[in-house]
């Protein structure tokens, strides 16, 4: 969904040619299975001893694979893309929280949080030694200022979440009716260490980082207070000389190209070991060559690398491939209703073309996703079996079957539901005997994606369904989403898209009754009920909440209105001179855990 994923056709051509031009094609040998056929570790366990002089004197070189310059907004409140987050990540991204492996907020980070269910307050207390990289203290006002920036009527930030309205006074401030946010108070003053959020409800989701109620970073209020909020994103305080709370401080940023870092002596946590870090944007056309010729120690862990890159790099002797399941999934959506702009709710339309559950299930069983992901994913992409990705180890339903290839079952489902071939036609007609043409919406992407789409069409044709591309071809990303986001549309019946998730996976904003991102408009009482269960009063109990997530996954798979497509690894190559590399969610000291075992790349 990120616009950066939009591959321009010129770029796509470039990418394929570059790979063909200089690749030594070794055949991949991945075995099949419902899970990832390649098992990547999320940490590189380098047992060699740290080389002190290397760690002090040489530079850790990091690559950010991307085809265009990064935008250069260091402030997570204002930035809108992962490249900026990546190149500024040694700063610690000003995160408030320390989290465990389930992204649950635990004590010991920049701040601790306490949820008071009775009083409906959240108290955020900064640690006493919290400092900005210019030496000034992190204050309670710094906790509150992100809300002001996000909700300011003149802001350029896109981060305002509807759930912020549960903070008292937030809506009034957002509408410009109040000068301050009344629901955020400072018991020991703005310069103190504590901020209290007063809400009209508290929910279990608030225990997890990445939830949409509580913002998870701080802003250096004293440092940026004189910059008008509308101009913050273009100010030098954000672009050229930003300050941070994390293990590294920014030495220099070359706009769109690179950032360089050195240890922040004011950091409260684990002391940074490597003295110099540089992060460079590297075109994804030659990232493989760059790694093969040992130009970089690793690629930024959060960036997306593709299956073709994996195929190129996996056999390198001096690099270890490290990864974990991505916070995202590809899915198939079916258009089963519309969005009522008056009531601001999604409405399911019983007479819509795709309203029949059997038809949707049959279409999913007809797809050979195992083979497709194996062929194009090179082992790092695999068929998804549910709508919660496996990175959420607790909530992910490993036992879900999803939709493995089963043409026989697909045919039977269709025939039983009355979708039959009539009058000698090659295609099935609908139960009323009317001609049935289903339109498939897909975004223009790489040549591999184009081949995948062709395979989907072929499979659907196999079960006698006349499925065609909307408009006869794949759609440019902007037209794809502007079509889908219309309140009512009949151009796309089934579509392939993807969601990136935050680290709190409640799907209300994606599949809730009033969610505008519920682009297929699937709504049912049971679905609303199941989604609400994830955050009702009982869900403060972990096992209840886990059960609620699993029930919802099971229900969604049965309904097949939104069906899982594929999961993939978020991975990258790591040079064997790097020690302490661990991208697991519970490693809160990623950058300061790193050290080097030799002064040049292995």
């Amino acid at each position: 969904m990120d616009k950066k994923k939009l591959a321009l056709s010129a770029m796509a051509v470039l990418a394929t040619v570059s790979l063909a031009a200089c690749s030594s094609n070794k055949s991949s040998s991945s075995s099949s299975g419902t899970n990832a056929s390649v098992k990547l570790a999320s940490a590189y366990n380098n047992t060699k001893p740290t080389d002190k002089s290397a760690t002090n004197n040489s530079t850790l070189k990091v690559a950010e694979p991307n085809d265009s310059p990064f935008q250069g907004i260091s402030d997570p409140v204002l930035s809108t893309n992962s490249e900026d987050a990546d190149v500024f990540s040694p700063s610690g991204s000003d995160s408030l929280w320390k989290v465990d492996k389930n992204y649950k907020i635990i004590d010991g980070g920049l701040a601790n949080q306490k949820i008071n269910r009775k009083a409906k307050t959240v108290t955020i207390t900064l640690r006493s030694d919290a400092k900005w990289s210019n030496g000034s203290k992190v204050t309670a006002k710094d906790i509150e200022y992100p809300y002001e920036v996000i909700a300011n009527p003149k802001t350029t930030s896109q981060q305002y979440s509807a759930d912020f309205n549960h903070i008292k006074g937030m809506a009034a401030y957002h509408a410009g009716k109040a000068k301050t946010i009344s629901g955020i108070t400072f018991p020991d003053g703005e310069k103190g260490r504590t901020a209290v959020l007063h809400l009209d409800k508290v929910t279990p989701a608030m225990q997890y980082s990445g939830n949409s109620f509580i913002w998870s970073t701080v802003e250096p209020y004293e440092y940026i207070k004189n910059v008008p909020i509308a101009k913050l994103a273009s100010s030098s305080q954000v672009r050229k000389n930003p300050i941070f709370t994390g293990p590294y401080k920014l030495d220099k940023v070359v706009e769109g190209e690179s950032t360089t870092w050195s240890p922040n002596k004011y950091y409260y946590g684990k002391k940074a070991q490597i003295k110099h870090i540089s992060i460079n944007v590297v075109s994804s056309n030659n990232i493989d060559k760059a790694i093969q010729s040992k130009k970089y120690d690793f690629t930024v862990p959060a960036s997306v690398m593709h299956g073709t890159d994996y195929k190129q790099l996996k056999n390198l002797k001096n690099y270890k491939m490290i990864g974990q399941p991505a916070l995202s999934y590809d899915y198939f959506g079916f258009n089963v209703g519309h969005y009522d702009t008056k009531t601001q709710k999604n409405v399911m339309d019983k007479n819509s073309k795709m309203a029949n559950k059997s038809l949707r299930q049959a279409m999913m069983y007809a797809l050979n996703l195992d083979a497709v992901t194996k062929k194009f994913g090179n082992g790092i992409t695999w068929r998804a079996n549910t709508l919660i990705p496996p990175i959420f180890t607790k909530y992910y339903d490993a036992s879900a079957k999803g939709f493995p290839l089963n043409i026989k079952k697909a045919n039977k489902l269709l025939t039983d539901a009355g979708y039959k071939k009539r009058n000698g036609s090659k295609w099935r007609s609908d139960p009323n005997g009317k001609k049935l043409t289903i339109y498939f919406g897909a975004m223009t992407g790489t040549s591999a994606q184009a081949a995948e789409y062709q395979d989907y069409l072929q499979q659907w044709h196999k079960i006698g369904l006349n499925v065609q591309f909307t408009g006869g071809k794949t759609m440019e990303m902007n037209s794809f989403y502007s079509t889908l986001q219309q309140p009512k549309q009949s151009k796309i019946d089934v579509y392939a898209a993807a969601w990136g998730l935050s680290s709190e996976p409640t799907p209300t904003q994606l599949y809730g009754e009033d969610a505008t991102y519920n682009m297929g408009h699937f709504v049912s009482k049971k679905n609303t009920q199941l989604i609400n269960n994830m955050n009702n009063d009982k869900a403060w109990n972990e096992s209840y909440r886990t059960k609620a997530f699993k029930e919802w996954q099971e229900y969604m798979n049965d309904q097949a209105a939104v069906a899982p497509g594929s999961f993939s690894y978020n991975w990258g190559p790591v040079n064997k001179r790097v020690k302490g590399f661990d991208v697991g969610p519970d490693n809160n000291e990623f950058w300061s855990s790193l050290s080097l075992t030799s002064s040049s790349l292995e």
Partner: protein
Amino acid sequence: MWKTILRRILIMIPEVIILSILVFLLAKAMPGDPFTGSINPKADPQQIHHLMKINGLYDPWYQQYWHWVVHLFHGNLGNSYQYQEPVTRLISGRAANTLWLALFTMILTYAFALPMGVYAGRHEGKLPDTIIRFYTYVTYCIPFFVILVLGIWIFGYVFGWFPTTGSISSSASGWLSTIGSRFYHILLPGILGALFGTVNIVQYLRSEVIDAKSSDYVRTARSKGVPSKDIYRHHIFRNSLLPIAAFAGYSITGLLNGSIFTETVFSYPGMGLLFVNSISYRDYTVITALVLIYGILNLLGTLLSDIILSIVDPRIRIE
């Protein structure tokens, strides 16, 4: 002469106005807006509407156009939606990068191509001519991005002679090392661009030289006993430059176009990528600003070409 130039500039004004309206309309006619597709599940769609509203994107086009023109006369091209900074600052940063690279490439291209063209023409049909023609055809028919990818692979990665990303090293400080580092970064893309961009100039020049060789004034010069070297240097070369001069104006103003391929492969932040990205992001302010700049540059380019032509060839001076 001056009158002509002034008249041409006056005619450019309505042309630019029409161009700007067209660009403005076409940009808005594309499906989507700066915020489509940037859907972050946690962000409120209402906020997107709010942003559309405060940016005036729901206003009728003529109102938007009017605001834009008013701001334009205040030297304000608006803010980029994607980069969240003033368009003027964004473009000037990229334009500087592109200009250095393009200027360097152009100088090298002429430095390679002019001698090759004259030499090939002078030795028409002989071995050097064949070699040069073969070279230009080969370079012409290989897609440029293949050359770039091969070039960066061989000289950047395998031999490690040249930097492979960006326009400047992150460790450069002080003006001398800054300029040095910048130059080092444009060296490889510049040389590749020049080596593989010679075909037009060489072919034009070659055929002009061949024509000129048999023309009357050359024969006269020869019969006067002017040494062959001088004939080529003073008579043939100058006359053969005419067709090249004809597109010199465009080449100069085209310096700012940038190259998507070079910029992608070398991760070099320039105008070409900025333009393409701004279109795919529907970054209206950047699109309109860039198209307007390119439009004006093209108009100036034709004017410049005419002026250069009239300097080189007094016979076609325009009155």
